[in-house]
């Protein structure tokens, strides 16, 4: 089924809650209202003729200018060989989206990763913990305005350029060599006296 046909079926079922199909520059997508996303996912996964059994990818994109975080669902059907892209827009200040874990188990870790790196809360998720970063990490690194905290538990994230230390040794040695080649005047004067 083509992307247009899938979108028409979604439109017929969910009406205004499913946005228009984007102008396809490479991959077309459509935006779904956050509170209907689980229903839309379940419809796409089970409806005969659509049967998107594979959640290919679930990730997010941060748009500070529009003040939204987009959650992007890439779906694929093994049976029908077609794909579809869904998006949900969440408020950037307090992003909350219902979990799709009940539809595809694979969403479990994807959502944990998005929670970790973007700070999006998935309501109903059975095990929403940080995945990549330590539990007490501050901030969400894949947000566009993320500032590094400057280390973690005394482990610095800056490193002195190793060449600086080498240069210091070099300078010390050069000063020593110079001192040997031309001894200071005080010692020179001593034997004469």
């Amino acid at each position, binding site marked *: 089924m083509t992307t247009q046909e899938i979108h028409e079926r979604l439109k017929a079922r969910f009406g205004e809650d499913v946005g228009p199909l984007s102008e396809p520059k*490479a991959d077309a997508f459509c935006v779904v209202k956050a509170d209907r996303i689980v229903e839309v996912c379940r419809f796409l996964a089970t409806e005969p003729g659509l049967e998107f059994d594979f959640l290919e*990818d679930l990730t997010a994109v941060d748009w500070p200018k529009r003040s939204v975080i987009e959650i992007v669902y890439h779906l694929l059907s093994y049976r029908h060989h077609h794909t579809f892209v869904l998006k949900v827009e969440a408020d950037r200040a307090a992003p909350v989206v219902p979990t799709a874990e009940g539809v595809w188990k694979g969403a479990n870790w994807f959502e944990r990763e998005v929670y970790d790196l973007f700070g999006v809360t998935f309501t109903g998720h059975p095990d929403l913990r940080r995945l990549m970063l330590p539990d007490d990490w501050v901030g969400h690194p894949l947000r566009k305005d993320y500032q590094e905290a400057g280390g973690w538990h005394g482990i610095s994230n800056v490193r002195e350029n190793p060449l600086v230390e080498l240069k210091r040794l070099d300078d010390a040695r050069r000063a020593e060599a110079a001192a040997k080649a031309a001894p200071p005047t005080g010692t020179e004067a001593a034997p004469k006296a």
Partner: protein
Amino acid sequence: MDKLILRRVDQSNEEMILNFGPQHPSTHGVINFLVETDGEVLKRAIPDVGYLHRSIEKIGEIVGYPGFMPYTDRVDYVAAMFANEGYAMAVERLLKLEVPARAQWLRVIANEFCRIASHLVGVGTMTMDIGAFTPFLHGVREREVINDLIEALCGARMTYNYHRIGGVAFDLPEGWRDKALAFLDHFDKFLGEFDRLISFNEIFVKRLANVAVIPGPMAVNYGLVGPNLRGSGVDWDVRRDMPYGAYPNFKFDVPIGKGFFGTTGDCFDRYYVRCLEMAQSSRIIRQALETLPEGEISAKVPRNIKPEAGEALARVESARGEMAYYVVSDGTNKAYRVRVRTGSFSAMCIIEDVSRGLMVADLVALISSLDVIAPEIDR
């Protein structure tokens, strides 16, 4: 959840929580498993990942489009060709670039050699985890020749950086084709030898058959990909079912798990699917070398790559299954968002469920049969 503690849950029984890793020879990299055991039986194993998280996706937003290519090698250092190709293809889709035929053929040749090398490590380390050391050395011996071939092709043995946006970096060196064919002649015989050495060894089979069974629907629901999915009997290969590059021009079979010695989707199926895939890769390389067209090895690509605003997803069949790159462009010379979807990530997701009720020693078989690579999970 109480984290990272070695403790006895209840003094009256044998239940305890153990750390399995992060520095454990059979976890294939730096991964930790919190293992809840009752004697020798697992209650469950909870994967704890992130030790190798380098935020490669953030780096992709900072360096320019061509500058990100060497970083993709580090996503999966055992099969770096596919990570290269997936990224190149995603940017080509954004730029609407047509890759010349010769470049596409060269990509296939390099990829399939890389797949053989990666599967040799995969099955080799698997036998080693089970307790057989020699097959690993046999596998690595063959991989060494492939490393030499790829080094002659692109100058690197691990992190190739061979693919470019719009094509590949180098053409075949003189005499390379004959060397490659000579190796394949030898390699086809080696596969039979390897089967006799270990695959059909009775102890090995008994150790893997009927262990950690993942049924097909469960594998699909968890998003398993590649050999792990095919091991569960799901007939899907991106190269055949959603063809890209030069793959439609070649004939090859897609081996799937049939319960060779036990149940469909057990550890042995996942192991043996990889062995069968190596023979198919060899078949593809022969056809590609036979029909290699003449011409350019790279399309005309502007020096300053600035795709128009939009987004594209490109999927390739990596040695660890489907690898997808999702690239969002905002019209500047740096990607707005780069996302890497890897096979090992979803393979780790399933471990907690599959591990319930396994023996501790079988957990090692399960992890190695999924052929996970730590940097691919963490990125």
